[in-house]
């Protein structure tokens, strides 16, 4: 089926050309240039907060690209989750780690030129392979949208229900893990003091072996196990 589709698209491609781009292609190209430029500024700017704000431009541009590809639901999910929550989380992270507001000259490490060489080499290889592979391939954007909410919802809840439910378990695990990891170290000595006798032998046995410096880590690991024991 795919082979026949390839044959038909190859046949269709005779009527289309590189030199006569459609309006959608021109819009995709312009938004893509903005997105790529914002991404480059994100990874090269020395002002940390500006990097997060340029990331908003890059992710928003990608949402527009999804809209141009008729993937409407993905576009709004992108706006909601990435622009709405991930960037806010990143800004909070920058704030809580006391990032300098002005220019920070040590934002880039010393292996910048090696990284640039690797990135340029992989970009050249990937672009060459991709252009060579899909030179005669066209996306047919006419007709009903392939990514409307109805189509995506039917595909998701008809064929992908089990991974969808497993994903909720993953999100719950990530939630619990983030709370456990970001708990204040000040609260852990009282926690081990109160949970120490009830949790049995592993708490006192583990603490002297790891030494005083590893105390908060082992204590924070001891908390969930004791909570599970309480359940």
């Amino acid at each position, binding site marked *: 089926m795919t082979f026949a589709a390839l044959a038909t698209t190859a046949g269709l491609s005779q009527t289309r050309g590189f030199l006569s781009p459609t309006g959608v292609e021109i819009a995709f190209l312009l938004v893509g240039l903005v997105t790529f430029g914002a991404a480059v500024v994100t990874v090269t700017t020395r002002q940390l907060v500006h990097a997060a704000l340029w990331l908003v431009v*890059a992710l928003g541009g990608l949402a527009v690209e999804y809209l141009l590809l008729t*993937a409407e639901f993905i576009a709004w999910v992108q706006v909601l989750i990435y622009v709405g929550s991930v960037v806010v989380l990143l800004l909070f992270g920058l704030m809580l780690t006391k990032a300098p507001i002005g220019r920070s000259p040590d934002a880039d490490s010393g292996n910048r030129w090696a990284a640039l060489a690797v990135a340029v080499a*992989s970009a050249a290889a990937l672009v060459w392979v991709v252009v060579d592979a*899909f030179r005669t391939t066209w996306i047919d954007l006419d007709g009903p949208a392939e990514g409307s909410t109805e189509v995506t919802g039917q595909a998701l809840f008809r064929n992908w229900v089990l991974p969808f439910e497993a994903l909720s378990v993953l999100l719950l695990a990530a939630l619990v893990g983030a709370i456990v990891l970001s708990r204040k170290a000040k609260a852990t000595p009282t926690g081990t003091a109160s949970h120490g006798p009830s949790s049995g032998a592993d708490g006192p046995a583990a603490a002297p072996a790891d*030494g005083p410096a590893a105390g908060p880590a082992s204590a924070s690991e001891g908390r969930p196990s004791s909570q599970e024991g309480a359940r």
Partner: protein
Amino acid sequence: MHLAYPAVLSALLFCTGLYGVLARRNAILVLMSVELMLNAVNLNLVAFDVWLSKAAEETLHSGQALTLFTIAIAAAEIGIGLAIVLAVHRNRGTSDIDKLRDTAEGHEHDGPDSDGSDSGTPATPATGTAAEKAEATA
């Protein structure tokens, strides 16, 4: 639309993120670059899903479903990653990944630190800042 447009943009975004991961020093900037790489993969998935759903009559929409899963996993990843970065920053006083080399081998200038006992290793490089933070939180 020609399929090369989204594919090339996706490749360029991925390599931009790759440069960011390799060249950045702040851990949060590295996380931003990881987000860029994940978004490049998402664009590829959506473009190929739209192409295959029309060209090959594919009704499973695996590309869009996997895109949604990738977005959710990226959200979980950024939450866990920021929690780890904040915990490291609280314990060490820095989120500079060039300075977090306790498990590295063969660094001569880090010799006394990395050759010390297990209990002394995390406390030694940032004793001053750790003590300050302990006083500040107490």
